[in-house]
């Protein structure tokens, strides 16, 4: 039996992060908290969601359990949750999950976890550059790039961190120097990524949230978002695009 109470925004954001890539996922209720991860069908991006036990208002897990969740459905239900609402999640048997907030209790059918696409191993990546910045600023840059191009270049050198997008006629450069960045190790790196994916990722971020970027050369990027007042950690790993010669 699992019985957990959690802030509305935390669980809503967590499900939102997952539905940006897949519609179904395995939820692992562990001693240390809730963990879920999934790769999109095209194998281009991975999402890893962790809600530590401390982020719950109550967390009772009699026995560690993995369940298959129709995340689309749950996200749909949670859309009406207010930031301050508390959401209770209850699993008493293998087949259903109860989601309760306000005076409504939803009973959602669970999916056989074995019917869900195999869970990925988290790849080990050696990424030289580490950049930490305000997630709201990052979001603005991606949204601006989306208006003119379908891909962006992330690059860093001792002068700072750059996001560059080039459309047919327009060009956007986003630059933050060391002083503006929260943390920066001054390493050089450069890779190109699809805006289609990035614009989905940044949906969970707001001003005041923090994003940590680990960047390499023509290599996948790790984007770690600390959101919902630091109660939720969402990590995305995104494969690069090949730069045309």
């Amino acid at each position, binding site marked *: 039996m699992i019985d957990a109470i959690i802030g509305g925004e935390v669980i809503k954001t967590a499900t939102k992060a997952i539905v940006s890539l897949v519609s179904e996922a395995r939820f692992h209720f562990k001693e240390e908290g809730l963990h879920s991860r999934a790769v999109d069908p095209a*194998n281009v991006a991975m999402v890893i969601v962790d809600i530590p036990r401390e982020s719950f208002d109550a967390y009772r897990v009699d026995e560690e359990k993995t369940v298959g969740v129709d995340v689309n459905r749950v996200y749909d239900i949670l859309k009406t949750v207010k930031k301050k609402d508390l959401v209770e999640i209850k699993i008493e048997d293998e087949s259903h999950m109860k989601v309760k907030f306000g005076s409504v209790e939803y009973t959602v059918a669970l999916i056989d976890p074995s019917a869900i696409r195999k869970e990925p191993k988290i790849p080990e990546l050696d990424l030289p550059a580490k950049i930490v910045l305000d997630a709201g600023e990052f979001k603005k840059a991606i949204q601006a790039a989306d208006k003119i191009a379908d891909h962006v270049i992330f690059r860093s050198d001792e002068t700072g961190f750059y996001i560059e997008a080039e459309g047919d006629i327009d060009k956007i450069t986003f630059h933050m120097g060391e002083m503006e960045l929260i943390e920066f190790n001054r390493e050089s790196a450069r890779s190109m990524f699809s805006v289609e994916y990035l614009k989905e990722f940044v949906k969970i971020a707001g001003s005041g949230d923090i994003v940590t970027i680990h960047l390499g050369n023509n290599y996948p990027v790790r984007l770690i978002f600390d959101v919902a007042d630091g109660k939720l950690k969402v990590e995305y790993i995104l494969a690069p695009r090949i730069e045309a010669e």
Partner: protein
Amino acid sequence: MSLKFREFAEFCSILERISSTLEMTARIATFIKKIEDDNDLYNVILFLMGQVYPTWDERELGVGVGLIYEALKVVSGVDRRRIEQLVKEYGDLGLAAEKLIRGKSQMTLFAEELTIAKVREIFDKIASLEGEGSQKRKIMLLTDLYVSATPIEARYLTRLVLGEMRLGVGEGIIRDAIARAFLVDPELVERAYMITNDLGRVAVVAKNRGKEGLKELKIELHVPVRMMLAQVAESIEEAIREMKNVAVEWKFDGSRVQVHWGNGKVTIYSRRLENVTKALPEIVEAVKRCVKEGVILDGEVIAVKDGKPMPFQHVLRRFRRKHEITKVMGEISLIVYFFDILYNDGEVIDLPLEERRKILESVVKENEIVRIANQIVTNRKDEIERVFREALDAGHEGAMLKNPKSPYIPGKRGKHWLKLKEVMETLDLVVIGGEWGEGRRSHLISSFELACRDPVTGKLLPVGKVGTGFTDEDLEELTELFKPLIEYEEGRKIKFQPKIVFEVAYQEIQKSPKYESGFALRFPRFIRVRDDKSPEEADTIERIAKLYESQLKKKKA
């Protein structure tokens, strides 16, 4: 470690460039000889022929062009319109898929190398899906394949899923390649194939147990056996001279069926060895009631309405409509006429027909649905002619003349069985394209482009279009039938996957530079859908050339 799918795909690309049958056979023999794993061997044999399951297996992928488009869209990030454009440009979804994968600029996080075993595993998963949400899951599984595929693998994966490899590799080549690879007589391979209808299984037996293993393969219940076929009788006199005594039966205008009844269940196969059990529930019930268990029977199902036989299409229509059987059941009743037996608690095909007939009579208790076809044994021409007339008067096709001393030879079209028919030359042609109608018929596909086969290259050669002979009801049914086969459209024109065979009548065959075949049909008229024939059984360019020649001779005479 299973064989890499890439090796298979590269091998296919070599075969695709070879036109010589001999060379192809030799290459395939060398390739399959090297395959260590039995499952790999089985799968490669089927895959080379563009099959995922033997035709009689009830399982099927159920993946149409639409799902492939969806999966390719996910993997390549290219929209459907652009993909359709590529298909038009290349005239082949396989090549379009290859191009899309090659042009992918997005890298992936993981790529798993595809093996034959992995592809088989995913195919089996796809085939097992049904009901709500299955389309979505099928797209996901296809996506899994394409994500891991190299460009050349994408080409052959696509073609395999669609069931057309475009290699020109037919059953004959595979049979000879198996014989050559495992040093066994091709005749033996052929026999084993006619009995099991699974060349994959035949190859595995040949590899592991050679000649002896193949000889030991026996007819089994619920595994269809290739049906014995008949030649056209030259004349009644000739038949009498050849056979002495002739067993004469009606040639029914119905659908050939092979009924397996044993281990508590009945399975019915069509002439193409498709499992049509679900389309014939009343036959299943009647067989259970009237026939001794543990047999395989050969017969013909005919449709009857108000006591009169209905045209053959009415039976076929039921085969096609596997799902709404109860709706049509009331309208038309079916009768099965059995005329042969292949198995009676063991193989009986080597017994002469006259003895099989006795066994047949002993295992079937006739009622209104299950009958034994009437048979007379005679050496008199007038008797045979009488039966022939009777059959025609009753609305059937003619008479069958069989040698009472002959064994049942699966898959054989020989001199032991002859058919006597009224002459009307028609052609069975593959439908490769079509056109939407105009005005009142604008929602219907109202004309169809036809092609014959070139047996050497495996190519389909256009011979013209048919737009007459259809009722509105026909067109509605055909439109439903063809919609899932649409590869792409261009204005009113449509390109289909070549899966369906039409029987068409015509006034004359003409030489024509307009079509790739070099021939054109004058006034073609639609007769019916040949559900019992696969495109591989459609008429060849050679037959058309022959008909053209004989037409010339007639004109001169």
